[in-house]
């Protein structure tokens, strides 16, 4: 990188600030390093670095977004990293309105989570480590957001994966938690493999020249890459989305990932990493549009299956975080499904991603606040908490109403956009989405009621969380109220002037769909209210659902199926194979080596005894023998010596004279 020239490709007006957008992603890396090396010696155990860096990143993100608010254009700049043959790998940034919005989302939520963790993780024995991974994760996500090429995106993508693994298993002393982290890591990895092959396919399609997203998009628009190739690449890339955004059939890791600390769930498993999968589809949307039509249909179908399936599972959960986890699955599936409904759907999906990040992070942090107070995840241990925790209660209700899609909160506007796009795209999808909306409102209301209303069932006296935890809740609550209007026709939907595909489009507002959405939300809430207003021993749904209750409790037996059909056979085969390998090959090798060593040492022994000792003895005996013979020369008779001397002189004289 040193000495490489910075190539700035100005797509529209280039602002001085935008050139340095990469600093937003760099700041968390610096804070991570500081936390790692100096965290434990810093007062407050190092949390200050992450919070300061994220605050700075947040301010910078707002400034970057401001560029687009003022109508600025996209801008890319990059430096060469290395070249392999014709392939140029670059590092850099591609900043457009979508990217700016994502930067704001990620830094806002991450900042909230960093502050919130001060309270939530207080006294944790790996507090500093937690902040290190949190900062590292944020940096990786920001890298994914600004990445101008697929390799840089992949780097951030994988770092996120490992950080997610570390954070889910933060309390790894309990087997359940470490299992959850392994499950999450391996499941997402199953999606990452096709994702990587998708990247390779696209690079191959460019003739091994570039992995730059803008260039690839340009080639597809110019029909230099055929629809079939694009379809293969797109479906492979979508594999990554299925893994990271936890879509069916790889959705199984996300509910288990709730084993991690709640701030982690808010940051990673609600607002950022799982959104990265959706972001990927949107970022590579040219590939999906340029591909054969069945690709986008597959995307919609996967989304539809996940949204309905997950919403049904959310109905029967007792663990408050699991309700939110299934809700997240369902909401992500909304985005994914509508992505498949065309460019308008893509923009609507991003709007939903934007609003969902705020209200779902709010809900998770609110749930964390509740869990912090009652020391249990189970809603059966909660109830009546509104009196004890007013701030948490109010913000949680705001988040819940937004999730249900009640006017005028964020979720209403984004869900409305999604429904309009789905109606224009696939009408069957529209129907499923409305049904899911009813279910969403129902389980949200159930969750709120079981947690905050009725009478307190748990132990001890719950109390409101500290300021460090409530202030992020208030901030996110305000955002949840506010951000929806950015996509609202009331103020001409500025969001869709920043985030668009091709050309900005005017936002459609269809009154009857908005009305239908509101009716669905209120209907769900009303039914839930009627069902749960009286306190009962058993969940009233259990009776109504009949045998389905068991199916839902067992998550459609999908996890069990995976365990029996895939994990156990592979694990048992592997362990049998490893056992055989151990017994036969490794032991054989070790035994063989031992036998070899014994043989060699026997030979060495023989050689030592006979050859070396023999040589030494022979030398000794030779010296003795020769000395015995030579001793007679030394008679002690001086004249005899003189004779020898004389004879020697004569002999030498003869030799020299004759020579």
């Amino acid at each position, binding site marked *: 990188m040193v000495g490489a020239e910075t190539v700035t490709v100005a797509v529209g007006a280039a602002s001085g600030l935008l050139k340095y957008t990469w600093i937003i992603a760099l700041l968390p890396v610096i804070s991570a390093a500081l936390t790692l090396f100096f965290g434990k010696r810093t007062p407050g155990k190092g949390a200050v670095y992450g919070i300061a860096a994220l605050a700075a990143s947040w301010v910078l993100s707002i400034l970057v977004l401001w560029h687009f608010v003022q109508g600025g254009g996209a801008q890319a700049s990059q430096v060469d990293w290395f070249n392999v043959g014709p392939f140029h790998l670059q590092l850099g940034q591609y900043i457009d309105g979508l990217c700016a919005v994502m930067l704001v989302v990620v830094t806002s939520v991450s900042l909230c989570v960093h502050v919130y963790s001060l309270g939530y993780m207080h006294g944790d024995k790996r507090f500093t480590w937690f902040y290190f991974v949190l900062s590292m994760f944020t940096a990786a996500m920001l890298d994914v957001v600004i990445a101008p090429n697929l390799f840089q995106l992949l780097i951030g993508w994988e770092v996120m994966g490992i950080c997610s693994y570390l954070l889910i298993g933060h309390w790894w002393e309990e087997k359940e938690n470490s299992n959850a982290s392994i499950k999450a890591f391996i499941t997402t990895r199953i999606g990452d493999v096709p994702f990587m092959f998708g990247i390779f396919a696209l690079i191959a399609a460019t003739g091994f020249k570039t992995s730059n997203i803008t260039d690839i998009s340009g080639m597809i628009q110019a029909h230099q890459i055929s629809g079939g190739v694009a379809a293969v690449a797109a479906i492979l890339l979508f594999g990554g989305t299925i893994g990271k955004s936890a879509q069916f059939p790889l959705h199984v890791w996300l509910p288990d990932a709730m084993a991690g600390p709640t701030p982690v769930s808010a940051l990673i498993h609600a607002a950022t990493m799982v959104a990265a999968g959706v972001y990927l589809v949107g970022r590579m949307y040219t590939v999906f549009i340029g591909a054969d039509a069945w690709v986008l249909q597959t995307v919609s179908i996967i989304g539809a299956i996940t949204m309905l399936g997950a919403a049904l599972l959310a109905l029967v959960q007792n663990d408050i975080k699991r309700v939110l986890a299934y809700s997240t699955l369902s909401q992500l599936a909304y985005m994914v499904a509508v992505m498949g409904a065309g460019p308008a759907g893509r923009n609507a999906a991003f709007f939903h991603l934007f609003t969902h990040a705020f209200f779902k992070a709010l809900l998770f942090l609110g749930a964390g606040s509740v869990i912090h107070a009652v020391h249990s995840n189970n809603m059966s241990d909660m109830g009546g908490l509104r009196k004890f925790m007013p701030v948490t209660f109010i913000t949680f209700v705001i988040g819940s109403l937004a999730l249900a899609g009640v006017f005028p909160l964020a979720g209403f506007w984004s869900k409305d956009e999604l429904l309009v796009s789905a109606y224009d795209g696939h009408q069957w999808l529209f129907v499923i989405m409305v049904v899911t909306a009813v279910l969403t409102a129902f389980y949200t209301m159930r969750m709120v009621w079981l947690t905050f209303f009725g009478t307190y069932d748990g132990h001890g006296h719950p109390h409101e969380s500290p300021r460090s935890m409530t202030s992020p809740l208030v901030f996110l609550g305000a955002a949840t109220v506010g951000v929806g209007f950015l996509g609202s026709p009331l103020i001409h939907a500025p969001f869709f002037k920043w985030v668009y595909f091709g050309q900005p489009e005017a936002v459609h507002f269809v009154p009857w769909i908005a009305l239908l959405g509101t009716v669905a939300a209120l209907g769900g809430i009303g039914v839930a209210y009627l069902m749960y207003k009286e306190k009962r021993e058993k969940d009233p749904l259990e009776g109504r659902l009949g045998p389905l209750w068991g199916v839902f409790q067992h998550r459609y037996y999908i996890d069990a199926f995976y365990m029996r059909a895939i994990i156990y056979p592979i694990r048992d085969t592997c362990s049998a194979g490893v056992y055989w390998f151990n017994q036969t090959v490794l032991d054989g090798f070790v035994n063989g080596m031992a036998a070899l060593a014994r043989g060699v040492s026997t030979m060495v022994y023989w050689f030592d005894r006979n050859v070396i000792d023999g040589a030494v003895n022979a030398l000794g005996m030779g010296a003795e023998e020769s000395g015995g013979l030579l*001793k007679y020369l*030394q*008679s*002690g*008779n*001086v*004249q005899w010596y*003189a*004779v020898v001397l*004389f004879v020697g002189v004569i002999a030498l004289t003869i030799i020299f004279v004759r020579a």
Partner: protein
Amino acid sequence: MIRLPMILFFSAFLFSAGVYGVLVRRNAVMILMAIELMLNAVNVNLVGFSASLRAMSGQVFALFIIAVAAAEVGIGLAIVILLFRNRESINIDEASQLKW
């Protein structure tokens, strides 16, 4: 004028006599005397060649040898006296302890 070959013959005879004496006599004093014969044979040789070649260096060497021979006799007689004190004999055959 005596010719050089005559001198050399004489010198050789004298040297051989010295060698014979050294190798054969048992009396240590006689051996010392035989060594003197050999040294003086060399002296004769040197002086002979010096006269023949008209170069003075031979005579200078002869003088050196006379000086060295004097010293040698001094040491040699001292050894013989010590030998006699230890053995009460100067028979060289009896002084044969310096061996295996």
